[in-house]
Structures are given as C-alpha cells and as structure tokens.
C-alpha cells in the first residue's frame, strides 16, 4: 500500500484555470505538508497542517489554498494559474518525534 499518495501525477493546464491536487496518507501521521520543487530541484515548504490545523503558511500567493478535511488528507487548490506556478508539488507527512518526512511521488504541474 502506498504510504503517501497524491493525484494527479501530471497536470497540464492553461493560464487562468483553477486546479486541485489531492493528497492522502495512511501512516497515521499527525502532520502533513505541501512542498514546491522548482526546476533547480530546490524544495521549499508552502504549507503545514497538524491535526487539520494550519501551522505553517510560508509566503505563497493567496491563490494557493490548502484544505484538510481530516488528519489523513491535505489537498491543494490553486486559483488563476500562472506560468510561474509550473513546478513539481510534493505532499509529505510526518509524526512528531519520529523520523523524517514520508513524501508522495509528486505532481508535475505545467501551466501553458
């Protein structure tokens, strides 16, 4: 069973569209994250949720909105997509006091 699964794996869309990426973890972890990896492979945190509560919201445009319906799910909704939003988005989860993150396999978003 996949520990952290995110869908879709690939997403190609036009500028101005609204899209969502879904993430689910079956590890029982209490914290989930969204990271953006740019073309230079730099991973930068966007959001962190602990038990459905937002605890980190780095400086990202408010076009990005995370939604956590429960502890096992953290979805990312993006409004009015721009060319610069093209990147790979990773979902991850962790448990306080335990070893590092478990990452999903990523969603490659291409805005054309």
């Amino acid at each position, binding site marked *: 069973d996949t520990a952290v699964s995110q869908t879709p794996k690939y997403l190609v869309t036009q500028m101005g569209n609204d899209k969502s990426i879904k993430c689910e973890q079956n590890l029982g972890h209490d914290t989930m994250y969204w990271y953006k990896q740019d073309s230079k492979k730099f991973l930068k945190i966007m959001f*962190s949720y602990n038990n459905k509560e937002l605890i980190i919201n780095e400086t990202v445009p408010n076009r990005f909105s995370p939604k956590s319906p429960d502890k096992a799910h953290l979805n990312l909704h993006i409004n009015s997509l721009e060319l610069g939003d093209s990147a790979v988005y990773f979902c991850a989860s962790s448990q306080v006091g335990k070893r590092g993150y478990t990452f999903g396999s990523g969603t490659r978003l291409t805005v054309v």
Partner: protein
Amino acid sequence: EDQVTQSPEALRLQEGESSSLNCSYTVSGLRGLFWYRQDPGKGPEFLFTLYSAGEEKEKERLKATLTKKESFLHITAPKPEDSATYLCAVRLTTSGTYKYIFGTGTRLKVLA
C-alpha cells in the same frame, strides 16, 4: 538568515570510488539534520536523522556524520544504483513550531 548549502552540486564517481558529500548550515535553533535520497521522478526518501555534533548513522554503503557547522554523507565503494540526488535538510524551532529548510542537493552519478 538561516541557510543550508550543499556541495558539490554534481559528482561523478567510478564504481568503488569512495567520496563524501557536504551539507553546511548556518541556522539557529537546530533540532535535527536530515538526509534524503531522491530518484528522478520520485519524492525524496528518508535516509538518516542526526541530532547532535559527533553523532554518526550508517546504512549499507552510506554513513552520515554531524558537526556543529556541517554534515557529511560518506559513500563507501559506491555502486551504480547509488546514483541519485542527495538532499539534506535542517529542522529548526521557530515561534513554537518546527521549520524545515532543504539544501539544493548533490546529484551523484556512479559509473559502472
């Protein structure tokens, strides 16, 4: 400003040629240093966590060490399957929560 720097950016080794990857950091409130391996098209995979200077962790051909300013990932007698991007990350405490900063990674290529 908190910063994590990895070197070299890229490294090519012959099979069996041992080497070390470096992760240097200037941060305050360090609460752990993490090493991850990332294969193309996949999410980072957790390798090690180090918490205090002098600590060492080993897994197969990999050994991670930590000082007060940097961490090394030593690769002994590497094989082609060790080819990947190796990422380090630091965990800090800030405003009562954890914050993670990733380095940009070292792309390792091991030639048969």
